[in-house]
């Protein structure tokens, strides 16, 4: 269809008439080609969403991550395929005037915390080591399945990071950093073990573009909220809550994603245009040289949603029905249902015993080394200042 329209515009009617029969033939070919070009070769989607900063005034980083989580879930990626790492708990923070909520828009329009948020790594579990373990897969086998990134060579992974960063590093939890070289090495290890098909890396921090400068593994596309030397700014404070609610870049990305539904055909070039300098004050950047497909052929839902490839089943195999066995087992089921006793609720807690328990005596421990040392210091200073002769007044 595109072919005929294009020709009709640019040529004379005579040529147009001549080419019309060819156009319809070419149109179906182009449709096939377009379908093939759009196909990315992935069969499942994963998302790793990381918020790296704690403390109440970094509310906006948690809101950033939760709004991306919300979009990703809405577009179809299930919780079992999302690894959500939040470094601090804002919803139940004692300073939150509206507990159990995290808002992303002023006047509390949108609560991104919702009812079904599943945080996999929380609070102090969000460390550089755990993050690298999740990416490379070197997790001890005793960790629960929800904390693993079980991607394979046909997974498209979305990695979103936000927090405070600088030129070449990202700060985790106010105590450690991850450098861009470590991140690039982690991605290379993922590539060596074929843990991803394509990777989209989005980072919303100050000087975010420095984090993707060092990538060298294939099939990675990266977006950042600001260039090296620029700061990413926050969007709007809310007077009732008292902190800034979102960062600008993620705010406009969220608005962009709210218009995407699982069937939409919007491509990555539109995502690159989100938040121009007039709105964002910083200049968002992107890197696509390691990516094999052209960004205009990459659908947003290739990374943010989970659109499965399906095929119609056209073959069956023939089986011989064995009616004898099935009849008898069916009757057995009926009889089993009648014979089952009514279920009872089992006694779980011996409540009566617990209520009447006496409080346990805690054992007394002598004071520890720190307290002893402190007191020794104080006593030494006192006697040094006032002289040893005061000792006789004590004894």
């Amino acid at each position, binding site marked *: 269809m595109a072919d005929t329209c294009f020709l009709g515009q640019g040529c004379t009617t005579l040529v147009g008439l001549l080419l019309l029969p060819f156009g319809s033939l070419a149109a179906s070919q182009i449709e096939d080609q377009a379908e*093939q070009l759009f*196909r990315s*070769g992935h*069969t*499942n989607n994963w998302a790793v969403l990381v918020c790296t900063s704690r403390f109440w005034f970094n509310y906006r980083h948690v809101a950033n991550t939760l709004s991306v989580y919300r979009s990703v879930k809405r577009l*179809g*990626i*299930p*919780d*079992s395929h999302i690894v959500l790492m939040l470094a601090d708990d804002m919803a139940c923070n004692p300073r939150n005037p509206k507990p159990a909520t995290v808002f992303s828009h002023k006047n509390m329009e949108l609560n991104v915390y919702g009812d079904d948020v599943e945080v996999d790594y929380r609070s102090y579990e969000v460390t*550089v*080591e755990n993050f*690298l*373990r999740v990416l*490379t*897969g*070197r*997790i*001890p086998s005793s960790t629960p*399945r929800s904390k693993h990134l*079980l991607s*394979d*060579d*046909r997974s498209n992974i979305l990695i979103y990071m936000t927090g405070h960063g600088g030129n070449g590093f990202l700060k985790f939890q106010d105590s450690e950093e991850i*450098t861009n*070289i*470590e991140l690039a*090495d982690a991605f290379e*290890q993922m590539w*060596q*073990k*074929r843990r991803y098909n394509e990777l989209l890396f989005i980072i919303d921090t100050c000087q975010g573009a420095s984090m993707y400068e060092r990538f060298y593994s294939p099939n990675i596309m990266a977006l950042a909220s600001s260039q090296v030397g620029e700061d990413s700014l926050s969007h709007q404070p809310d007077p009732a809550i008292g902190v800034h609610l979102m960062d600008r870049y993620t705010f406009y990305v969220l608005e962009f994603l709210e218009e995407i539904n*699982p*069937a939409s055909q919007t491509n990555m070039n539109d995502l690159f245009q989100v938040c121009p300098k007039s709105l964002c004050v910083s200049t968002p950047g992107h890197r696509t040289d390691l990516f094999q497909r052209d960004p205009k052929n990459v659908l947003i839902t290739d990374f943010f949603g*989970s*659109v*499965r*490839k*399906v*095929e*119609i*089943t*056209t*073959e*069956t*195999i*023939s*089986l*011989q*029905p*064995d009616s004898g*066995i*099935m009849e008898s*087992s*069916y009757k057995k*089921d009926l009889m089993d249902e009648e014979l089952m006793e009514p279920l009872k609720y089992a006694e779980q807690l011996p409540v009566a015993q617990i209520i009447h328990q006496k409080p346990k005596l805690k054992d007394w421990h002598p004071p520890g080394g720190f307290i002893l040392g402190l007191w020794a210091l104080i006593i030494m200073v006192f006697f040094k200042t006032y002289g040893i002769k005061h000792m006789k007044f004590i004894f």
Partner: protein
Amino acid sequence: MVPVTVVFTQESVPLDDQEKLPFTVVHEREIPLKYKLKIKCRFQKAYRRALDHEEEALSLGSIQEAETMFAEPSEQAEGSLTVYVISEHSSLLPQDMMSYIGPKRMAVVRGIMHREAFNIIGHRVIQVAQAMSLTEDVLAAALADHLPEDKWSSDKRRPLKSSLGYEITFSLLNPDPKSHDVHWDIEGAVRRYVQPFLNALRAVGNFSVDSQILYYAVLGVNPRFDPASSSYYLAAHSLPHVINPVESRLGSSAASLYPVLNFLLYVPELAHSPLYIQDKDGAPVATNAFHSPRWGGIMVYNVDPKAYNGSELPVRVKVDMVRVMEVFLAQLRLLFGIAQPQLPPKCLFSGSKSEGIMSWELDRLLWARSVENLATATTTLTSLAQLLGKISNIVIKDDVASEVYRAVAAVQRAAEELASGHLASAFVASQEAVTSSERAFFDPSLLHLLYFPDDQKFAIYIPLFLPMAVPILLSLFKIFLETRKSWKKPEKID
């Protein structure tokens, strides 16, 4: 290496050729893959004369009777084939068919009375053997992950990756329990149809089967109404969106770390009955089912409209498990990568065994899996070595080292067994190679957090050591000056 035994009956070849039996011919083929990578495929044909009971069996009327007379398939090693050559005018096969492929690693080929009999028959035998064992596309599919390939072939992406075990879950989705009271005898069906199939596939891995019934689980897509047939339909382009809303309710991935295959049976609600799936051309699909690679399959089961007559809701629905299992087993075959082979021309195909998989199909699967496992194990070990080369301060613990040695030994053993044609032991060795190499690569102790860029090293150590070092260096310098003065002094006195 594929060992093929070719058995000649009495009138199949000219007499002077028959004198030459028995002997062995080796037919080698190099299959070139990308980037100068080649795989040598050897067919070792052992020619011999037919024994008496085989002659008897082959002179019977039809091929089915002949098959039942033959030796039990358990005597035949996995990976080997037996081809019987019958005379040109024998009535065992229908007149126009040149060859026949049976379900139990057995094939029949017509002989010819000709001077070049052995060459022609050898060629036909190779054609049949290739159809039943290794071909280029089987190997290319197995190695698809390790070679950059053109991405547009869905066959290569459909099969599951090789793993030690699989979990298969059957779910019945009933979105409208007020109208349909659905019963399915899943235990009986599994016992009767699925378990024999999985038993045949026992060599491939451990299988565990479970089932569940979900109520009020709807598909994420609203079906459209088609007034022409007064039924509802789901168009082909809306099918990919069906799976996601349901998947979160399946709860299948919590139990084990094995890959999970979900098979869903959806009984549409009364308002949307009957529901058909349409393919790209708009025609309803005969099986009313679709599948997704590496995930599983969904089938829509329409309630028989006669069941609604006169009875009040909810209507008791008893699911016809035979129809359902036919589709699910076909989907299971496709998901495992057991595709229809390319048959040589004029070949009679026997159709499948009652269990749903033929022995030589299992052999093809084992070959593909062994090759895939070997490739995976070698790339894992190579990337581990590269990682160690690049990052010099990783410490390799003893148990990681022993896993690496085990993996290498298993890879060598698997390659040897494949070359000598012992398929079962080669597959076991290749699985061991993969598990050892993965355990070595993914050991938690290998995580390196030891990257120290030079400017960070300076930034940390200089403020610490410089203030300390200044007085030390100055006093050392002073000492040196004083000792030099004291050496010079005695000279002056002299």
